[in-house]
């Protein structure tokens, strides 16, 4: 029986685990294959049957001189051991040991640069899945992300050249083909299938990959909620701790709105004090179906929630907390369905929140843009799974 190995090395949370295990399940059902998993975290949200073929991924090697505020994709590579020859060699060897045992016919990588690099030169088909964040387009220096400062400094060019040398040293050691530029190994795969849409890709690309649409991430056992009584605008907010959380909560609790908040992580400690007749606060995930008749969604611009919100045809106030979310937010603003208050820097003031809420609720253009975009974002059935398993069937055959 043919074997497929699904790997996940970087990132956190359910956004990686749920689509990838769902995809593995789909492959098991659709094809006559044995699906193996090698994940960086043996997450308690993954159900037990998956563990029967689940391996622990090798640890990502530490950077010798980590970049504190990574600017782009190559900085990310630097920080996962590409500046550390010994660590890089060890990681490649560790992945090759796994390949030696699993002997996959197809390797499917989700945010797994080291496993993808380690597979170079080995007799297996290579597939990349995930969002555009994980898959850089060709180019040296590595092209910048959308909406983020992109000017490559000489320091970055030098770093990339040094990383390429290290990579080629390790490839030579393992008798694998060397590379001309740092991200060649992302380009030379058999299939790159991104779980997003072109508007929500993180890079501008000359040669578009295969876009599969959004892979839904639905939490287990979400809470169905009802809007508070009244006739104010209905706002659903998914909030994590950030500078400005209390300011936003004060604004939301001013009596003008009907608000449902899913306060995640430590945000619950703050948000629960704002609960009242017009504001419901829950530490549990909220079933999005139950807020589908709302007027606005506030979130931190996670890729999945943006797509889910567009599928509900709702406008968004986006509060990105890190760079990936900044790109997602920039894309949502570009399609006209969102306003963005960047929360990666100084604390936003009350006026910023008030003004954004007034605009988003008062100007129909945001909702119209969400409606226009939403029609192509229905996540009820992930449209990419069948296409992807079909493509993998072709690779196997």
């Amino acid at each position: 029986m043919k074997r497929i190995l699904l790997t996940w090395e970087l990132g956190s949370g359910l956004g990686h685990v749920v689509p990838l295990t769902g995809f593995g399940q789909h492959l098991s059902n659709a094809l006559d294959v044995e699906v193996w998993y090698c994940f960086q975290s043996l997450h308690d949200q993954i159900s037990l049957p998956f563990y029967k073929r689940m391996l622990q991924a090798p640890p990502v090697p530490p950077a010798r001189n980590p970049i504190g505020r990574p600017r782009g994709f190559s900085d990310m590579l630097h920080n996962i051991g590409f500046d550390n020859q010994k660590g890089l060699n060890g990681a490649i060897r560790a992945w090759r040991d796994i390949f030696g045992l699993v002997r996959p016919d197809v390797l499917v990588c989700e945010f797994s640069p080291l496993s993808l690099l380690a597979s170079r030169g080995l007799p297996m088909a290579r597939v990349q899945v995930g969002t555009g964040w994980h898959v850089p387009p060709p180019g040296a220096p590595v092209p910048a992300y959308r909406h983020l400062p992109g000017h490559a400094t000489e320091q970055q060019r030098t770093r990339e050249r040094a990383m390429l040398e290290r990579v080629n040293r390790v490839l030579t050691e393992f008798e694998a083909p060397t590379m001309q530029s740092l991200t060649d190994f992302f380009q030379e795969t058999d299939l790159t299938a991104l779980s997003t849409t072109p508007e929500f890709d993180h890079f501008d690309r000359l040669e578009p990959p295969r876009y599969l649409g959004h892979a839904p991430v639905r939490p287990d056992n979400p809470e169905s909620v009802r809007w508070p009584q009244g006739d104010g605008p209905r706002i659903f907010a998914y909030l994590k701790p950030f500078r400005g959380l209390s300011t936003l909560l004060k604004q939301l609790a001013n009596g003008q709105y009907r608000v449902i908040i899913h306060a995640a992580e430590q945000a619950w400690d703050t948000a629960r004090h704002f609960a009242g007749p017009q504001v419901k606060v829950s530490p549990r995930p909220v079933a999005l179906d139950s807020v589908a008749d709302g007027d606005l969604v506030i979130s931190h611009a996670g890729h999945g929630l943006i797509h889910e919100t567009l599928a509900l045809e709702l406008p968004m106030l986006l509060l990105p907390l890190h760079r990936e979310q900044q790109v997602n937010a920039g894309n949502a603003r570009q399609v006209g369905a969102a306003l963005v208050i960047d929360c990666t820097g100084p604390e936003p003031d009350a006026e910023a929140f008030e003004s954004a809420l007034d605009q988003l609720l008062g100007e129909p253009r945001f909702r119209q843009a969400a409606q226009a975009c939403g029609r192509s974002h229905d996540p009820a059935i992930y449209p990419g799974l069948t296409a992807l398993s079909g493509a993998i069937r072709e690779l196997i055959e």
Partner: protein
Amino acid sequence: MNEQSRLSILVAWEIGGGFGHLMRLRPIVERLVQRGHRVTLVVRDLEKAQEIFPDLACLQTPQRSGQATDYPQVASLAEIMYNCGFNDQSTVQRLCASWRAIGELVRPDVVIMDFSPMALLAFQASPVRRVLIDNGYSHPTMTARMPDLRPWQRGYVDLQAAIEDDVRQSVNAFLVEQGLEPVEALSALFRRVDSINLMTLPELDHTGPKTHVAYRGYAEPGGPPPPWPETGARPRVLVYLRPFAGIGELLSRLGGMNWAILAIVPGHDQQLKARLAGVSNLHLTEALCDIHLAARQADLAVCAGGDTVGIMLLGATPVCVVPYHAEQYLTAWRAEKTGAAVTAGNPSRLPPRSDEIITALNRLISNPDHYDQASEFAARYKDLDPARELTAIITEIEGQGFPET
């Protein structure tokens, strides 16, 4: 040995740090490879394992998600297990399933386990030979309750019993699910194996002498001869320590005495090297040497509380033990009872300060009884032959029907 009789051997190491576990496994693994067996390592520290075993496949052990340690000041093996995922039945199920997934790939005939309780549980229902390579810290006494790993302090008996009961319930839930008999005492899990080899000696067994195990002494990994300073000074003092806050001060003070000092300090920095550069009677190095030979040549040793303590005593060398953590303090506690060792510092603040080490060292050298006791200890084990013990371990691993080693 022909191809068909070759064994697939999985070597598991789940808990612990440093090179100690890998170094004691190395001679065993090397001999197994020499004998034509296929060895796969599944280890806690991949980087170190790759360094020690450059030609063997090394995989990462399945790890529980998240890094929280529920009981950082562990007082029993049950608490160590609790911290490693045995606190929760679903975690046990997941980790054991992942171990068995490795088993499906490796298809082992034998599983060798060094401080690997999850692997031990996972392979209970598998048709494999199970061999433990442990010491007294990772292998318990066969008592109703797990032995105390902090005998120098009062424990919270009720809490410890509750923790152990939680762990036992998780273990039993898995055993029953696999169609196996549950264990009445948690320690009984550690007897459900084919061979138990403790790489220590009864006097230095952390939790006291046991009758159900084979004591194998200490592995002899070999290495170059010890590079003593060529001053001819005596006594010869072997210092084998990892860097800690007081290492510079300690070595400077030792260097001020008219002794020949070989200081093996793996991972030391340039600052320490510069500080000791002009000290002719002290040789500072990172490189490991033949530690058994060093034990026979030294007059005194200053070392942490690992296997080196026992190796020194077998070489008739009294030891000043410098424990870095509670496990090593327990070794020191046992070593002191032999009369051939003293312990620096106290368990509430480890590692000890350099002045505490000097005080302990003075206590050691001022009393000739320590030398006498070290000589007696060595005489007691004069017939202990590491090569023969290694052969015995290999025989235990291969089981019946293999050509003699």
